[in-house]
């Protein structure tokens, strides 16, 4: 449980070069919610394997953010905070709703099959990929999900997960190596991130 950092919205931030303090103009919660909702649902899906569970997870995280919005809105990265809550709650939610999630996932898959064959195949591939990710140790899975979903650099992922930049790089390195082996893909591990 360590560390900080994360994405900074340049359009809403004023930096004071004299003391390195950063003052963030509070953003209306509704705008933040609208902008981040689908990303958080995507993260929830990657970590739980269930769309209904992912929506539940995202909504719970936003409810938590709303309760403390006066404080969180002044953060440099409220998006990082809400992802941190969702990523940590995903572990317990996944356990609690595993049985329900499986059946709902099957239903969701059937609906997608009927709707669009190409999209269904992509959905199946995504499901396979995230299933392999969820088979990794928790921190590795969270780092990998943020890495591929958000395309964030390791310092920002460190801010969400509460661990050091170096630890995130180690998680990503090891996680990607294991994933490549399990998925039969080439690892492309030129660096540690």
């Amino acid at each position, binding site marked *: 449980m*360590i560390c900080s950092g994360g994405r900074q919205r340049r359009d809403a931030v004023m930096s004071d070069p004299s003391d390195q303090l950063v003052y*963030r103009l509070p953003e209306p919660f509704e705008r933040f919610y609208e902008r981040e909702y689908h990303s958080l649902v*995507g993260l929830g899906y990657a970590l739980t394997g269930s769309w209904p569970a992912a929506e539940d997870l995202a*909504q719970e995280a936003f409810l938590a953010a709303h309760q403390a919005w006066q404080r969180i809105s002044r*953060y440099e990265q409220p998006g990082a905070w809400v992802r941190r809550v969702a990523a940590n709650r995903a572990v317990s939610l996944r356990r609690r709703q595993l049985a329900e999630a499986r059946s709902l996932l099957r239903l969701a898959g059937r609906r997608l099959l009927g709707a669009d064959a190409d999209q269904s195949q992509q959905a199946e591939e995504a499901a396979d990929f995230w299933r392999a990710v969820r088979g990794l140790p928790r921190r590795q899975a969270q780092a990998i999900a943020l890495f591929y979903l958000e395309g964030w650099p390791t310092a920002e992922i460190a*801010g969400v997960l509460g661990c050091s930049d170096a630890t995130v790089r180690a998680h990503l390195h090891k996680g990607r190596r294991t994933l*490549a082996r399990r998925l039969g893909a080439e690892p492309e591990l030129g660096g540690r991130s």
Partner: protein
Amino acid sequence: MNLDSRGRQVGQVTRQLAEARGPVPPFALVRRRHRRRAWRQAALVAAAVITVAAVVTVQLRQQASEEVTSRPRSFGRVAASIRIGGQLSVVRADAAGVWVQRDREVVRVDPRTNQVTARLPMNPSGSDLGAVGDGSLWLTHIAQGTVTRVDPATGRTVATIGVPGGDNAPVSMSMAVGAGAVWVDYDLGGTGVVRIDPATNTVATAVKLANTPAGLAASDRAVMVLTSESGVAYQIDPATNRVAASIPVCRGSNAVAYAAGAFWIGCDEGQLLRIDPVTHRVAATVGLGGQAGSAGWVAVDGSVVWVANLGDTLFRVDPQSNTVVGSGSVTGPAGSYITDLAVGPGAVWLTTSQGTLVRFDPDG
């Protein structure tokens, strides 16, 4: 297709699928739906509580003569917010001072003046501050699988100790000092814990565990090792270096500390468990409640247990009554979240995401 191309494509598809689920639901609707669910759950819990309470009340009356009378009178107060800057990720404290990991250096703060008095670069680069004890700083290097002992007065490396198999890069490493040793758990595909002898700076023994370790704490007579998702904690006897007990705890345990004759374990679901190291059982469960309630950090000063959760609330728990006697947000009005917690000379210390070390005075 290589992994990164596939991962990026999957990420893009997942975002599209999330958007295809439908428009963003109105937040008012989300609130109503979750409130209704909470009421339903509360009704079920209330029914269970009433039943249990009837039984417990009878038992408590029988034990009235043993009731605790001395409880802490106040929660405490924020005594100082010490601006250090950078990314503060770890805080540890001992009699010599408060030690904070700031990016790639360790910063010492003097608790008498609340001033930064030393900055020590961490070598090798990529290390994390694991523990302070035996007059040293102990760093972990997860990518190399090593422990580095550092002289806090000079910042010089005293010894570098490799954990068995560590060159395969463990997934995680946690550390605790106690029972005359430094204990390091490391996840290397279901490995366990190593005991480092601070007299020789060598690995004295390794203890194999059936499940992946995820944090540990040590007292003079026992070491408690968490396993994050198996629902089991292992108690190691330092006299034999063997697992003395496998204790069923919460699934998703994420922090542990020792105080008042017990180990205290923070759980993902927002509870604090009191583990009796003699009976190897959960002696009490302290509910912390609230949204985002995962109990992320536990620290103790002998007579009080302090817990911080992911909702950035600090809880003061009385180990005599096993109850929360105070709680509140301590990260300050400027907005910041907790990244670590430690108890040190006369105060509770919290690092925050915006480069501030918060000093919380328990007697304030």
